[in-house]
């Protein structure tokens, strides 16, 4: 209740600020569209249905890239987190590759993965992979020694040790990595689609911008923001569901 009210107030505040910037700055409609024209842009996109196509493609790319990154990163992270020597060697490689913007790899992505949806998926994979990997490794390293001693005492062997003890014990840390990665990956999806793609939400924005339709740019930004937020909340729900299964939240 209170929360819905807050959201409402927030949007009113935002729109008021926006409209007053237009009035005070005296910007032309073509340079800074009014809330009204953006709203009509949003409505139009919804009615014609173009937006859903783009959303669908973006979401498809997102889930493919993010999903595969999460699986690979968690599996690798569990292994690397348990072998400090191996990690000692992999760590420097990761450290140097991580700060490179995923889009910088585009020529090689095209070379190996071709064109179409793959470049965007690979870009998201790269964007999501490193945060999840690092979070998993550090979560596994931080698993309370008591649990490991307990498992040793009870003679719990691999692979049971991994999925009964280490994975759930590391889960909260992994989850925060997942959360982080979902944000970064979404941002990069859009950024990636702005560069190479011919469809998706990022393309929508670039296309609108090319046609000098800044109201549609803002409408696109609106959808990106709302969808990004929804994905984040969805992940939050998933986390708290797992958390509830595992009794983490109280």
């Amino acid at each position: 209740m209170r929360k819905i009210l807050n959201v409402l107030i927030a949007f009113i505040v935002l729109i008021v600020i926006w409209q007053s910037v237009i009035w005070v700055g005296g910007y032309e409609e073509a340079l800074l569209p009014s809330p009204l024209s953006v709203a009509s842009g949003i409505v139009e996109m919804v009615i014609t249905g173009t937006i859903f196509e783009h959303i669908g493609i973006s979401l498809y790319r997102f889930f493919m890239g993010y999903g595969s990154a999460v699986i690979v990163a968690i599996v690798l992270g569990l292994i690397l987190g348990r072998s400090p020597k191996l990690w000692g060697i992999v760590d420097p490689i990761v450290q140097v590759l991580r700060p490179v913007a995923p889009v910088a790899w585009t020529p090689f992505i095209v070379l190996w993965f071709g064109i179409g949806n793959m470049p965007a998926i690979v870009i998201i994979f790269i964007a999501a992979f490193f945060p999840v990997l690092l979070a998993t490794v550090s979560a596994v390293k931080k698993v309370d020694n008591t649990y490991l001693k307990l498992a040793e005492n009870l003679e719990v062997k691999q692979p049971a040790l991994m999925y009964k003890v280490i994975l759930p014990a590391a889960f909260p840390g992994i989850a925060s990595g997942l959360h982080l990665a979902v944000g970064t990956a979404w941002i990069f999806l859009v950024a990636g689609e702005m560069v190479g793609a011919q469809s998706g939400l990022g393309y929508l924005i670039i296309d609108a911008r090319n046609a000098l339709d800044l109201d549609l740019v803002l409408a696109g930004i609106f959808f990106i923001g709302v969808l990004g937020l929804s994905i984040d909340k969805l992940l939050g729900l998933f986390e708290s569901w797992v958390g509830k299964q595992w009794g983490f939240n109280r």
Partner: protein
Amino acid sequence: MSALVQVKEMSKSFHDNEVLSEISLSIEKGEFVSILGESGCGKSTLLNVIGGFEAPTSGHVLMDQVPIEKPTRRAIMLFQHYGLLPWRTVKKNVEFALEPTISSATERTKRANEYIQLVGLEGSANQFPAELSGGMQQRVAIARALAIQPELILMDEPFAALDTFNRYYLQDELLRIQQQEQTTVALVTHDIDEAVYLSDRIIIMDRNPGRIKKTIAITLPRPRDRSHGDFHYFRKLIFDTFHFGRNELDSDYHI
């Protein structure tokens, strides 16, 4: 009865820092032994060596005449913060201990329920540890340890985090269960009353390096009365042992 555990002239160092020096002791089957000493005197280390979690630097540690080389299900450690898996319910926590040996799920559930009942937690079997008070969590840990039917239970300050009232209550519970199951117990504590109330024998340790200062057999009949005169005889005896030690070590103790 013969000795279950024998520690013979055992020393333990961490990087040239001698923590335990020439410890010799033995624990009989069915006995309740307490190890009492100040913080840092090596009580936990001694328990870890007996449990097989740490290897002695020199000397021998035997269980039934066989050297202890790694932790086994024969000697179960109760950890200070209970060592419950927070992502499993009470029942699942107890079952966790049974999973490596009992493959039938119904069999496991049956045994788990038995021991949950023993510690009086049947009402909380489906709750998560975080939903329980400290005292209840400790009872789950005890149930889990007992469910394995180990020959030896090692307890590291099991009641330190509880308030006085809960502590008293759980001490009684522990005694009741121990007598029923005839388990051998080695318990580490820094609480004199607790040691006197629970033990057949108290091993008093000294610091720098950790060594055995004195062993006191508590001859009081059970159940013991905490406010009885004889109880205070042992209390005072131990108290004086420490008071003497206190002045000796005063200078470095307070820093």
